[in-house]
Each structure stands twice: as structure tokens, then as C-alpha cells.
């Protein structure tokens, strides 16, 4: 089985002229460079599915670390495709199903562990202000992300950014409603082609709710799950590793976790392996892996 091609799929969105769009494409191309290093997509059952061009692999730090002054980020994010609101993520969408919060992938997050507080795993806002590392997609993150992925409230820049995104998101999508698009299948293909697998999975799952028998969408969903699973597996390493809590018990409650992360964290006992924790979580593995990865990124958990 050949590795997934990295060429632009024929039905991928054609970038229009203009600076913001160019940056999106740049980010996509740069991220491609890490594809073979990080993810082995052999065996993915997606013969009819267009190949992704923006895989997650290593978060594309080098490709997306742009000087803050160079990109008016929020405006840029909003003007890339102002008519495609669903491309931006809602705080209640993890790409893993409606109402499941969390970041999406495909280069839309760049999270540097060095930005975190050494003991609490909290974001250090000074690091954010002095050394912006967000790509366009990340800056389109709405507020209220769990697990500390959102910006610190104390940061003016972050607060401004969040406000702008918030208004944009609100005006385009009523709160509590899943992402809608006039051509959801097109959106699914587009997201997939751009490597936004979690976003594509969200759209696919929404479509499957309406028509569970749609074989094409099923294939997309399955492929997204496979790729995401491989991504997390690559990031987490061996599932035989034993995680332990890296934050003192009395400081745990100061973290920004949601109840699912809290639940998984309650199973981290310094004895159970990652695989065991995934088994006992009762959550879909993909979601559990995502949360564990985020906990690891925040140093809330560490490997022995």
C-alpha cells in the first residue's frame, strides 16, 4: 500500500489572490514536509477519498510561527474565506462529535510546552505576548477552550483576539448549533483535503446522523478516525507507558480542565498504562487519546 500522496487533490479549494490566503497555503505546504516523518498512513481504507494535504504530524511550528506584526491574524483568519464560517471551529466542537470541546488538528494548533508554567501546566501569558507562535488557524480558536488551550485572560492581546473571533463566530453560527454549510459534503471534502481531519470528522458525523448509510461519508469518517488515531499514537508513543500526575493534588483544581479530562486524570494512578486508561475510560479511544495528549502537553501528566 503506497503512502498517501502529498499532491494537492483536484477538488481542493483554489486559493484566491491576497496575502492571507497565501499564508494558509504556505502553512499547508510547510506542514506537508513533516508528513512522512510523523505518520505512516499505510493501510488507510480511502481509495476514493482525496488525499489530505495538511496532515498534523508534528504541529507545524516552523511553518506557522509568523511574526505577529506580519499578519493581522484575526482579520486574516476572518477574511480567508468569509463565506465559509464552518471552517472556523466552535468551542464546543472537538471534531469528535457535537458538543465535544477541544482543538482540531491539521495545523490549527501550535502548542509549545515551554510556554507552560513549570508546576501547574498553566499558560504563561508573557511568553505568548513576547513570542507569538500562533498560526492563522489557531488564532481563529474561540475562547473557552478546555485544558488551558485558550489564551490567558490576563493577556490584552489574547483578550482582543478572542473578542474578535467570538463576534465573528456568533454572527455566523448560532450558539449551540452544529456547524452548517449549504454544501456539507463539499465542506467535508475540503476539510479533508486541507488536512483538517477533526473538522472533517465532525462534518462527516453530522452527515451520518442524517443518513447513516451514506457509504462515501462513512469512508471519510473512517479515514479521518484512522489518521487521527495514528497522529495521536505517534504523539503519545507506546501505549505501554505509565503516566503519573505531574501536578500536586491541591493545585489540580486551579487547572482549566473539563470533566472528561478530570475523569481520565482520576485514572492516572502511576500504575495503569496508557492502554489500560484508554480501555477503562469508556470514551471513544480517539477522544480519550486527544484529552490525554492535551494533559501531557500541559504537563498535568508525565510519563515515568
Amino acid at each position, binding site marked *: 500500500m503506497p503512502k498517501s500522496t502529498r499532491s494537492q487533490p483536484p477538488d481542493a479549494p483554489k486559493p484566491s489572490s491576497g496575502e492571507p490566503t497565501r499564508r494558509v497555503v504556505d502553512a499547508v505546504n510547510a506542514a506537508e514536509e513533516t508528513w512522512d516523518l510523523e505518520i505512516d498512513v499505510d493501510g488507510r481504507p480511502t481509495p476514493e477519498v482525496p488525499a489530505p494535504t495538511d496532515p498534523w504530524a508534528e504541529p507545524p511550528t516552523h511553518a506557522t510561527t509568523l511574526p505577529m506584526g506580519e499578519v493581522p491574524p484575526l482579520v486574516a483568519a476572518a477574511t480567508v474565506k468569509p463565506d465559509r464560517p464552518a471552517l472556523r471551529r466552535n468551542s464546543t466542537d472537538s471534531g469528535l462529535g457535537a458538543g465535544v470541546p477541544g482543538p482540531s488538528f491539521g495545523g490549527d494548533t501550535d502548542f509549545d510546552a515551554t510556554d507552560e508554567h513549570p508546576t501547574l501546566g498553566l499558560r504563561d501569558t508573557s511568553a505568548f505576548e513576547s513570542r507569538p507562535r500562533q498560526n492563522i488557524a489557531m488564532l481563529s480558536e474561540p475562547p*473557552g477552550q478546555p485544558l488551558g488551550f485558550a489564551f490567558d485572560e490576563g493577556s490584552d492581546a489574547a483578550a482582543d483576539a478572542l473578542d474578535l473571533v467570538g463576534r465573528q463566530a456568533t454572527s455566523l453560527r448560532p450558539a449551540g448549533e452544529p456547524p452548517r454549510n449549504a454544501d456539507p459534503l463539499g465542506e467535508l471534502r475540503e476539510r479533508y483535503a486541507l488536512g483538517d481531519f477533526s473538522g472533517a470528522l465532525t462534518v462527516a458525523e453530522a452527515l451520518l446522523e442524517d443518513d447513516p448509510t451514506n457509504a462515501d461519508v462513512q469512508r471519510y469518517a473512517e479515514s479521518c478516525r484512522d489518521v487521527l488515531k495514528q497522529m495521536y499514537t505517534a504523539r503519545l508513543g507506546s501505549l505501554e507507558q505509565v503516566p503519573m500526575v505531574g501536578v500536586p493534588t491541591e493545585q489540580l483544581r486551579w487547572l482549566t480542565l473539563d*470533566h472528561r479530562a*478530570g475523569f481520565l486524570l482520576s485514572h492516572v494512578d502511576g500504575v495503569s498504562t496508557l492502554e489500560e486508561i484508554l480501555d477503562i475510560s469508556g470514551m471513544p479511544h480517539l477522544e480519550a487519546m486527544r484529552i490525554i495528549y492535551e494533559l501531557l502537553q500541559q504537563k498535568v501528566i508525565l510519563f515515568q
Partner: protein
Amino acid sequence: MERVIGIDLGTTNSCVAVMENGAPAVIPNRGGYKTTPSMVAITEAGKKLVGHIAKRQAITNAENTVFAAKRLIGRKYSSPQVKNAIATSAYRIVEGPHGDVRIQLRGKTFGVAEISAMILQEMKVIAEDYLGGAVSKAVITVPAYFNDNQRQATKDAGAIAGLDVIRIINEPTAAALAYGFGKDLEKTVAVYDLGGGTFDISILEIGAHGVFRVVATAGDTFLGGEDFDARVIDWLVEGFQQEHGIDLRQDRMALQRLKDAAEKAKCELSATRETEINLPFIISSGRNEALHLQRVISRETLESLCADLVERTVDIVRQTLEDAQLGKEDVEEIILVGGMTRMPRIQESVSEFFDREPCKGVHPDEVVALGAAIQGSALMDQKTEMVLLDVTPHTLGILTQGGNFRGIIPQNTTVPTSRSEIFTTSRDNQTAVKILVMQGEHEMGDQNELLGEFVLTGLRKAPKGQVEIDVTFEINADGIVSVSAKDMETGQQQAIQVTASSGLTQQELKNMIDAAQGEMLERRASEDEEAAKQEAQRLIAEIDRLFPQVEQIVASSDFGRDATEKARGILAKARTAVQSGSTTQIKEHLEALGRTARMFRGVVQKTP
């Protein structure tokens, strides 16, 4: 002499023990715990989980987690106990092809004995890992009230798990055995057994030369530590509801954490006066924030929450003594069994009732398994003089007119035994009579267990009550029950031998044994692979660590430069093998790695 393990196959927890150097010892599992939850689960990915890991997901995956399978083993689907279990279990209980009970997990149907076998297999693996060799023989304990079918089903479970069950013994007998180990006692003892899911009280006579006899036994199969946990959970849920207006029961993840925390707090309160329950991020408030649960519970609170449960056990003890026509003063020793008996309030209640302190010399969680190990060792050692008298766990009898049950061999009769009783016809000119052999204590036949039936024909025609039929029950030393009916005038006779059945056919049993063996082989192979990989990684790390020192030493001498080059080559090849994941390749390099590590160690040690 072949090692025999003793297994306490409990409703909630199981324990395995073995005789070591003449004394019984409990074997800890891989997590270091001496008991293993009797739980089996199948995950979404189809993976089988047994023990602690199954328990930790029991609420979030309730439909596919089997607990308290012991309540179902060997029972008919139509029995009241099974109906009760259906009402209280989240997993799906269905009727088997022979009127037995089956359990459905993720679309696959399992026999109850098959589920229990998974737990027994886990205990077997724990013992094998500890003893470093295969274990094939076991003594398994069952409650004293288990009927023949339940005992047979337990034996079948052992067979499926790859164990030759050389004896099934009663749990209170095992507890008394462990209590009396090394002593020459003649005593009447009460075994008060409050486990995770059941309560049993048994009165035993320990006779001279190690003769044990169960005098009376009773209990409640739906009363145990889980009920105590449930009270703590209720208390926490109500408190949280009052504070935040959120019902934690609606969220399975929250409930799972509550269950774990309640059990932990309950255990801690046996040793401390109060403890804190701290569950951060227990649930989402719905306003994009997570709420925390933090409460302190005192021992007094726990005792007040559970007072009626403790009282229920005392009521059962009182009733059992009355039924056995025994006074409290007849009981010379009280043995506490089951983790719940660590609760100070329970110990106080037992002391108050019997007017004496219970025995503190036995470990409540381990005593039954220890007794089973003692019995196993005694069975293998012909020199041991210990005699365990088997008794009939339930009354044996037949169904008579009006659906009434007539007992012929009473409960707790020592076997072998034989009893007869004369019956007459109930209709005029009756030429045949159907004998339904039953087991149980209820006066109505339909509440008891049907063991078998046969028809005695050729009776002479006569008015009702005139034809006399002699019904004889006989139980031999192996526990085989034979029933015969004889027309006293004509001498016409019919008989059957009652064979206990778990509800599985021989073919089904064979298939299950084969499947379990296959799984076991796979599991061992997988463990072998993992062990090889870990060993290789350990050796690579050690060589890496020693390399700079060895290089330094070699650089200052004229020898050994080739050796370091070779070591590099060995390391590179071993790393490639580990990355490939091929066990064969890894094993090929283990010897070279070991040799290199030994050499490096030697070089470093010999150099001042």
C-alpha cells in the same frame, strides 16, 4: 508434590492462596493487591478485561461489564434469584438453550460458567506468575447454600479455566480450616461473612482430629459492601445536588468516580475518624466550567447512613441461631470474613450480639482462600489426617400432591447417607406415579430446584392411599445422588441417578475449554513478546549508560578497541530489531546484548 492452589471465588472479589513451607499464603496479583475484583468486561474494541481494570470501568461501560456472576452460576433462568439479578444488572441476561442463564456482551453470548472461568483463569495466571510454573489443580470455595447444580457449574468454570478442581468446599468451612490451622480444636464457631455483595452466617462444629461440620447456614445474597458504598454515594449526590442543583447520577463518568471514591472513603473510615472525598472536575456546570466535589465524611456519618444494613445482618444471625435451635452461648468463637467486617461498627454489633469479641487472628479478605489452600495441600498429602465431612447443602426430597415439597434428606446431613420414606397413591386405580426429585428448603415445590424426574409404572389398581411406594434417597461418598421408588407389594422398581448440571452440554463445555486454552496461549505469547522487548530495551539502556566509561577505559589501554566497535554494532542491530517489533529478531539479539552488558559491567567494576 504438585502444587494445589486454593481459590476463593467471591461474588465481588476473588483471592488465591497456596501452601508455602508448610503455611498457607495469599498470592498478590500484578498490581500488588491480594484480592482481585470478580468482574469481567468487554471493551468497545472487543478487548477482554478482568479484575481491577474491569472494575474501574464498570459504570462507564455498565452494559458490558459483568459483576456478581456468582449470583447466577448454575441457576435456571426461571429462578427468582435470576429474575432479581435481571432487575438489578445493567448487563444483558438471557435464557440459554437448556433453560440456563447466558450473558450477552457486545453481541456475543457467554455461559455464566464461562464468565466465572475468566476470573478463575486470572487467578490461575496470578498463581503461575508467582510460582513460576504451570498450575493445574485447585480447590475452589462456594457458599454453603450452593446446590449441586451451582457446585457443578463452578467445577465446569474451573475446567474451562484449565483447572482440575479436585474439591469444592464450603466457604465457612474453609474459613474455619484457616482459623483452626495448626491447632487441635473442638469448638462450635460462627462464621460471619460480609463480603462485597453477599452476607452469610454459618455455624460450624470443629470436631476432634480436624473434622468440620456445617451445622447451619443462612444469609442474604443481596446484602454486602456495595450497599454501604451506595449509601455514601447517595449522601454525596444529595449534597452536591443541594449545593449546585446538579444530579451527578446523570453522568456515568461522575458516577464511576463517586463509586470509586465512596468505596475508598468507606475503607479509610475503618482506620480513621474522618476522611476527605476530593473529586476535582467531576462534572460540567453547563456554563463552560467544571465543578469540583469536596466533602469530609466522618465515621459517625457513615455509621448512621448504614445502621439499618448492619442491623439486617444481626437479624439474620439471630434467626439462623433460632432455626438451628442454638443459643448465643453455644457459639465459642466468631470468625469474621469479608472486607466489610473491618468496619468498627460491624465488629461492635457482632460483639454486642454474641457477648464476646470476634477472633482477630485471621485476615477477613484472605481467610477463605487460605483455608482452600490448606484443604488442597491436605488432599495431595496422604499423611494429613484432616477430614472434611461433606454435608448436603440443601434438603433433598420429592414433589407431592398439591405441589408440596416433601424433604427426605435434611439440609446439612453428613454424606454418605441414605434415607427412605413411604408414600401412597393419591387417586383411585392409579397405575403410575411420577417422582420429581427436588432440592431446596421451601415448602412449595416450585420454589425449589428440580434435579430430575422419573416414572414408576405397573402399580396395581387400588383405591387411593392403598398402594404403598418406598422412595429411597442415597448419596454416596462422591456426592452422587440416587433415587429409587419401589412398589412395596409388587416389588416393581425404578431409579435414577441425579447428575448435577451447570446448564452446559458436554460439547459446549469442550468448545469453551478449547477457546479458553487458545486465548491463554495467545496471552502467554503476547506476554513473552513484551518481556523480550523490555529485556532488550533494558540491556540497551544499560549498555548506553556504561558506554562512555568503557570507552574512556579502553582509550587508555591498548586492548578492547575492537570490542567497543562490536558493541556498537550489536546495539545498532538490537535497536533495529526492537523498532521492527519482531519478537524473533529481538530474541536473536538478546544473548549478544546480555554478553555485552556483562562485559561492560566487568570492565567498569574491575577498573579502579
